[in-house]
């Protein structure tokens, strides 16, 4: 497969070179194969007073110009995807299509070389909630709960960092409140009032056979939180237990030990048992409050139960994995519902947190030195926060706030706290600012702008010291240096954001939380399974990133990551315990790449059944870059309404496609999704549905018919450049923070070509993106 890929791209590359050596004048005209193809297969529909899809194609000799390249990029994409001409028409000769797309590609690339397209990225862009959280972490060593502090960002083009130009009063108000809160936490001054936070556990989390990720062995269930304790002093932690629909504590059989652990050391053990007769369950957890001493800074707090060993569940049937529902599958042991941190109570001191160390780098010996010390503190903070060299003008605002709040330097820390709040509320921190360029010109972005583009792309956070220094020295844009920095950044743990921020959005993993399979049909689904689904896919992506594998390994891999819960769901034996580990797969298990993972399969299903339509749409959109338009208005919703319910989904869809208006898109969508029919709505393998064998015959436009997930994977990998193109487009959209235009096609093709030369390794893709025209330039 890989060698085939090589040949294909290599030949593409050669043609491209050959054409470039020709005469410029000839290139502007469309080549003979293109004209022939258009004449024979396209013009009939795309001409006249009402051309199909409002696309009018030229007849005869026509010229490719800067003005119409948008149209030709679209034509090229449809031809490459194989979805034009439609399946109902006679297909063109593959050789002809090939020659036409090759020459069209060459011509478009040549035009792009002469007239690069950089695209317009907004020059004022607000940090997203995730970026804000990471920036605070990197700047002040404070982990904040950004979800509680800031509203969610709107998503467009599949990502939440695109529509970020607005600033509503509510959002501004919350930014200011957040700035005050964070600066208070960072300094931990005595004025801080006892505060705290409430953490809740999802009601459908089975806590019987699981350990939260990071909790020590020998524990069961509960919750793990990382929290910034603002001062050194005494804190109280109150826990409450999960109740059933009758307000009774669930699973309260026998005696249990509930432990509160601080940094994995036990600070309190509670004994839990049934209340004496005459008292209701309220008395059991009315006062489970632990009091203990904590030093300022970030600590890990765990509330969990001591593991008591397991009894076999006696059941006539295969026991379920889930235990949270009073009627169907009750909890076998008590579970944690809520954890409240409160404090500091009583005497407390500021202590020496990492945040204070980072901020208070100097202290004035006399009040006379206060202002100078404050300036010394603010300068590096401003530089990191504003991501560029700072001027005296930048310094004026925090110093003014410092002066105001410190009573002329008397209360030094109060002044620093205010100045810091000012920096965090400043638009220079909250907004990424790029200098706009004159209309219709393309120019290279500045080195500090490049540093931010890099760090927000790869880390979803601020540039670090090294990037800033290089940018200030004007050396970051040097190609060798840029390459070196990209490699360094990829090796850094902060690229976890590419998993949690990019992959989660690209692959719809964020939607998993909202999926709720029908509890009668699929009783064996709980929060644990959803978490495990998400984790498996994240680890697949993370492994590709860390081991620098080919991006094609996302689709085809011989190993995966499992924990006991997920392995049981998949029917894979001998995986014990809550932690994820790499498992070498037996082909008969039918697991592996993205198309075989429960996350994707469940996120693309309905509550009661699979949806080949949604699955097909997901594959076409996210793996092949061939989206279909939404159904036209007035078309009846779906097969449930129009066709009898006793039929298999396949039969219902076939009836649906009888309607010509539906068939245009569903002829493309359905066969792709139908190939995945052997996975049910919660991602389990099945051979039968309604006592009939499941048929997994499918097909893909431009490839032809095939069977099952094996066939679909092969069909996608037969044209790896389409998958890589799609991933490139997704990464570029995310990295630039703008939707791509058809004119970006040339840059995308160049990235794909360059990464092909390195076996489509992830790092090759990223490095090619970073040195591409849209990433390094603007217009």
């Amino acid at each position, binding site marked *: 497969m890989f060698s085939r890929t090589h040949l294909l791209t290599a030949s593409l590359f050669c043609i491209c070179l050959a054409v470039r050596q020709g005469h410029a004048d000839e290139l502007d005209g469309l080549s003979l194969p293109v004209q022939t193809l258009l004449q024979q297969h396209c013009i009939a529909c795309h001409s006249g007073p009402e051309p199909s899809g409002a696309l009018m194609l030229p007849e005869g000799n026509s010229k490719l110009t800067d003005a119409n390249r948008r149209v030709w990029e679209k034509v090229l994409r449809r031809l490459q995807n194989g979805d034009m001409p439609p399946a109902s028409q006679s297909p063109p000769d593959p050789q002809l299509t090939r020659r036409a797309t090759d020459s069209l590609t060459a011509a478009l690339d040549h035009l792009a070389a002469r007239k690069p397209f950089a695209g317009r990225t907004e020059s004022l862009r607000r940090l997203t909630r995730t970026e804000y959280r990471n920036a605070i972490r990197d700047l002040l060593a404070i982990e904040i709960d950004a979800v509680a502090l800031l509203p969610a960002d709107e998503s467009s083009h599949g990502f939440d960092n695109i529509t970020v130009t607005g600033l509503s009063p509510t959002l501004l108000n919350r930014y200011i409140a957040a700035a005050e809160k964070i600066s208070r936490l960072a300094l931990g001054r005595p004025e801080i009032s006892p505060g705290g936070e409430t953490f809740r556990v999802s009601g459908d989390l089975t806590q019987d056979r699981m350990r939260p990720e990071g909790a020590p062995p020998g524990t069961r269930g509960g919750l793990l939180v990382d929290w910034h304790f603002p001062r050194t002093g005494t804190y109280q932690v109150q826990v409450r237990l999960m109740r059933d629909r009758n307000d009774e504590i669930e699973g309260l059989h026998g005696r249990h030990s509930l432990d509160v652990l601080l940094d994995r050391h036990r600070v309190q053990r509670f004994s839990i048992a049934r209340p004496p007769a005459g008292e209701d369950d309220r008395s059991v957890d009315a006062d489970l409050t632990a009091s203990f001493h904590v030093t300022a800074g970030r600590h890990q707090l765990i509330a969990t139960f001591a593991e008591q060993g397991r009894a076999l569940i006696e059941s006539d049937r295969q026991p379920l994995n889930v235990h949270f529902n009073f009627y169907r599958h009750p909890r076998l042991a008590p579970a944690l519902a809520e954890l409240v941190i409160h404090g500091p109570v009583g005497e407390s001191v500021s202590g020496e947190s990492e945040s204070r160390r980072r901020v208070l780098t100097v202290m004035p010996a006399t009040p006379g030195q206060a202002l100078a010390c404050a300036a010394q503190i603010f300068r590096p903070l401003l530089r990191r926060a504003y991501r560029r060299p700072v001027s005296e003008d930048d310094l004026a605002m925090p110093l003014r706030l410092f002066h105001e709040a410190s009573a002329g330097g008397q209360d030094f820390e109060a002044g620093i706290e205010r100045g810091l709040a000012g920096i965090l509320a400043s*638009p220079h921190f909250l907004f990424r600012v790029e200098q706009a360029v004159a209309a219709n010109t393309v120019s290279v972005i500045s080195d500090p702008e490049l540093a931010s583009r890099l760090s927000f792309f790869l880390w979803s956070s601020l540039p670090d010291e090294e990037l800033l220094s290089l940018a200030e020295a004007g050396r970051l844009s040097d190609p060798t240096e840029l390459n070196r920095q990209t490699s360094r950044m990829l090796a850094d743990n902060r690229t976890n954001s590419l998993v949690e921020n990019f992959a989660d959005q690209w692959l719809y993993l964020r939607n998993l939380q909202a999926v709720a399979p029908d509890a009668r049909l699929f009783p064996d689904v709980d929060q644990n399974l959803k978490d495990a689904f998400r984790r498996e896919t994240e680890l697949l992506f993370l492994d590709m990133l860390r081991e620098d594998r080919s991006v094609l390994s996302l689709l085809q891999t011989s190993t995966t990551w499992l924990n006991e819960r997920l392995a049981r769901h998949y029917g894979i034996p001998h995986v014990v315990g809550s932690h994820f580990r790499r498992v070498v797969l037996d082909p008969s298990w039918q697991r592996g790449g993205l198309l075989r993972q429960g996350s994707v399969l469940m996120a693309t299903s309905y509550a009661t059944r699979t949806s080949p339509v949604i699955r097909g749409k997901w594959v076409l959109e996210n793996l092949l870059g061939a989206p279909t338009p939404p159904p036209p208005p007035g078309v009846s919703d779906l097969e449930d309404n129009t066709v009898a319910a006793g039929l298999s989904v396949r039969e219902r869809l076939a009836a649906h496609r009888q309607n010509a208006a539906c068939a245009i898109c569903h002829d493309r969508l359905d066969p792709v999704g139908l190939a995945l029919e052997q996975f049910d709505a919660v991602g389990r393998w099945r051979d039968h549905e309604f006592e009939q064998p499941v048929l997994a015959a499918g097909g893909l436009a431009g490839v032809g018919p095939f069977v099952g997930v094996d066939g679909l994977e092969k069909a996608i990998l037969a044209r790896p450049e389409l998958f890589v193109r799609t991933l490139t487009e997704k990464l570029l959209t995310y990295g630039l923070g703008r939707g791509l235009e058809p004119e970006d096609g040339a840059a995308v093709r160049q990235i794909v070509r360059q990464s092909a030369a390195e076996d489509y390794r992830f790092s090759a893709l990223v490095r090619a993106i970073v040195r591409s025209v849209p990433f390094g330039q603007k217009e």
Partner: protein
Amino acid sequence: MRGAGVALGLPLLDAMVPAVTAQSQTAAAEQRLRRLGFVYIPMGCDHSRWTPADQLKLQTLPPILEPLAPVREQIAVLSGLELRNAWPGTHATSNASFLSAARAKRTESNDYHLGTTVDQIAAATLGRETVLPSLELSMDLIAAVGQCDNGYACVYQNCLSWSSPTTPLPSEPHPRMVFEQLFGEGGKSEARRAALQRRASLLDAVRDEFARLRKTLGPADQQRVDEYQTAVRDVERRIQRAEGATADNQLPELDRPRGVPALYSEHAKLMFDLQKLALQADLTRVVTFQMSRETSNRTYPEIGVAEPHHPLTHHGNDPEKIAKVAQINRFHVSLFAQFLQSLQQTPEAGGTLLDHVLYLYGSGMGNPNLHDHLNLPIVVAGGAAGRMQGGRHLQFKEPTPLANLHLTLLDKVGISLDSFADSHGKVDGLFEPVAV
């Protein structure tokens, strides 16, 4: 946490809090009703001790309603209301249809479907001018998901308020979360004022920074910064209003609650205190409060009932069990009565706070032993500013939809609908003077 008599302090640290001073133009304008509250009690009642013997004019209150004696002239008891759409008699549908009067789609999955509830219809209009369009409170920390009662999803049993037929609103049982939702972090009035001033100066800094940024930008981005400055001015106005409010407000003091009080009555009183504060400060004009959930197995040792509530209500006509159900019914009423009294003792706009709110108290189940939805226990309180006629017992001869009452309440707060759910008219005699 201190009990109900706590010193209460309106902590207006959060700049979201609007002016409380100009109440004459807002919720409490004379002869205007603009606030609605709903309190839910589960599993019906013992009718023998609930239903007043008096026709029309309330003179002696039956045992369960006796705690309402101090506010007798501000309440009306309604007998004979029903919820047809709650059948077939279940706990889930009792709760779900109480404020929606709609039929719940029987499902355990997330394709649940009910109807927009009366409080949310009110909130869509009344909530436009307040910080929170509505406030949803409850007493039980319930995270129950999936199937709860006879094939009905747990949301039907957990959620009283639905902002659309498919959007159940979660309710908050934790006093501290409610407090922070309403008031931010709180604090004494001095500290609050200082905090607001600090925030105002921070905002000045932000405005200056935007102006400084603007100079470096092109025309299109300059225009965008001008839009941001509008947001800055808006926040500035909110802070000014809040500053004015802290200066003038005579509200009592309340520390930020810490945990959940161990005693049911203390917890409930705290939740009522928070409602009062929210209404008084005009932070919201619509409140729902689920005092206990359907099928709750809570015991009430405070009043000597050691048996769990739900099994007691399946009393099988055992007089001892019925007496205990009545005890629980009376206990719930007594907590509501204390709340009404405290509203009555708070002057507002030439009357009392109670005059300017309209509260509906009741259950979606009638006789719990039968699981029926007939002759629901219902009390309407307050509303004198809208000419509510208190001291009444209205008895309907024919079973009458509860939706008729919802329609009437909406009408009284200025929302006029032709019908609501299965309503077939308004409730006569509640607001009109009737010769007694």
